[in-house]
């Protein structure tokens, strides 16, 4: 179940939750056991299995690339715009390239950039969120405002603006997407940290004279790992969404790289002539990957938030 408060709670501080207090009371080994139990529950969910299977197929295609595609994805020697048939299962595009081979090889770009962008965004967001939640005061006030300002705009828009001024290399796309994911992650981590900050284990660590860095990263961080894992899986889904949309809008990796978004962007122009396969199959590929990642994220979320 989605908890509406978790999504719209915003930067306001909640009271320390009894669940968190219980988690602290548990010993290390018990925590490990609970984690193992969660993992077992997640693995058994059908959505998780289906999602992983689809992702695995695309990862396989991305790694093998030209070695398993039926034709060379960049070879434009066959007849343009052949409809799907026995030789070219998904037909050919306007320059006579095999659509199936291009869809298979096209998994590579998005799978290289999206997960990496999500990981960098989450790492930056965790650091920022820990600082905001634990140090608090002025720093938190100022950073919360900035985070809110970032959230006032759709990521695609700021990314488009940034890529227009910076140029569209894969590195710029990676950097821009991860920086734009940071504020959302920071907000989630911040509210999780606020619930932990006044618990006994933090107070006792302070009394022991531990440094702030130690308390944030060694004491609090393991206890907020649940929301962070959820955030990571959700962000991977959004990253695939964002990278595919950017490349459709022409702000992705430059051609002739067989990127899905770019293929849709090339293909949709000939839709009105009845040539649907150059658009339909890469569009379906994007949809399948995004849904698969979201199925995984949803199973992780429902198990971790129920426990």
């Amino acid at each position: 179940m989605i908890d509406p408060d978790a999504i719209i709670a915003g930067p306001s501080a909640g009271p320390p939750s009894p669940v968190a207090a219980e988690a602290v009371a548990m010993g290390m080994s018990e925590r490990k056991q609970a984690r193992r139990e969660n993992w077992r529950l997640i693995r058994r969910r059908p959505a998780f299995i289906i999602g992983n299977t689809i992702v695995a197929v695309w990862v396989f295609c991305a790694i093998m690339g030209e070695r398993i595609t039926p034709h060379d994805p960049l070879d434009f020697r066959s007849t343009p715009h052949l409809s799907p048939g026995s030789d070219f299962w998904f037909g050919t595009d306007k320059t006579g390239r095999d659509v199936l081979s291009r869809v298979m090889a096209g998994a590579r770009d998005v799978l290289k950039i999206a997960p990496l962008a999500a990981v960098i965004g989450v790492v930056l967001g965790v650091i920022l969120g820990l600082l905001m939640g634990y140090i608090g005061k002025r720093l938190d006030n100022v950073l919360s405002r900035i985070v809110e300002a970032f959230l006032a705009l759709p990521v695609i828009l700021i990314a488009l603006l940034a890529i227009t001024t910076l140029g569209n290399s894969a590195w710029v796309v990676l950097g821009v997407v991860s920086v734009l994911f940071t504020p959302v992650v920071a907000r989630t981590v911040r509210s999780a940290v606020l619930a932990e900050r006044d618990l006994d284990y933090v107070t006792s660590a302070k009394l022991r004279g531990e440094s702030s860095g130690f308390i944030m990263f060694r004491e609090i961080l393991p206890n907020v790992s649940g929301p962070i894992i959820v955030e990571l899986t959700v962000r991977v889904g959004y990253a695939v969404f964002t990278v595919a949309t950017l490349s459709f809008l022409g702000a992705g990796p430059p051609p002739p790289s067989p990127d899905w978004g770019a293929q849709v962007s090339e293909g949709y122009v000939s839709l009105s002539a009845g040539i649907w396969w150059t658009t339909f199959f890469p569009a379906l590929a994007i949809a399948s990957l995004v849904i698969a990642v979201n199925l995984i994220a949803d199973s992780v979320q429902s198990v971790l938030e129920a426990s």
Partner: protein
Amino acid sequence: MRRYLMRRLVSALITLWLLATIVFAIVNVLPGNIGRKILGPFAPQSEVDAFNTRLGTDKPLLEQYITSIKNIVTLDFGDSYASGSAVTDVIFPALFRSGKLALLAFLITIPISIAAGIIAARRQDKATDRVIVNVGLASSSIPEFVTAAVLLSIFCVHWKIGKVFANPPPGTSPIDQLQYLIMPALAMAIAYFGYLARMTRAGVIQSLQSDYARTATMKGLSKGQVMRGHILRNALAPTITVISVQIGYLFGGIIGVEKVFNYAGLGSTMLVAAKTRDIPVLQGAVLLIGIIYMVSTLLADLLIAALNPRVRLETSS
């Protein structure tokens, strides 16, 4: 209530100022000669200088920053690099066209999603609920341009329902415009269905388990009366918030949809501006969308406060 309103207004203004600062920082992150960048390496130096003077890009950064903040207050975003006409003359008509599309999308999606959310909540964990939740998950996770492309290939090309080019010819009556706008609006409606339905479902489930719902049932009210009088008032608060946030976020997805359907709205305008590196138009459009987001979330908060006395009382004390 008045204090609540004032506080929300001040915080919205601060956020808007920060937003403008962020946008200014992004646009000016690369040092360099804007005139040279726009006109290319072969333009004569005198022309480049004239261009920079005309746009004010030869002034110190601080002065440019102050001008850009002033521009938001007066809703004047300067002149387009490409056409030379005022940015507002470019973006407001485009915003109007996007607004039509967005309005239609919301008219389709809001009643359907709220109904689906209520049905799912009342049949929690049964087959109907599972179907609605999973369809919602899929519909909100697929990028809008993908849905648009698939709808276009199936309905407009294969079955010839709806138009491939969504721009109605000038002088088309509002009713006739529908057949042009329906498919792109549907693509957006599908994208928002998921969030709204899941939000409504979660809100209704939470209220169904509450004490006031139990009290209302025990006092002998019918199921429908409990739903209308007690549950929906509370349960719809998160849904209203999501709708208001979507109004701003809609402009992320609309760019792709407008590109697929060749619709001349704000999204297409921004894409052209991005391609021609027409920064003032792009910057103006982004800021305008930020303002729209601020206003719509502000209105949503007021609406929630009006619906739920607990919110107004809590915050005014």
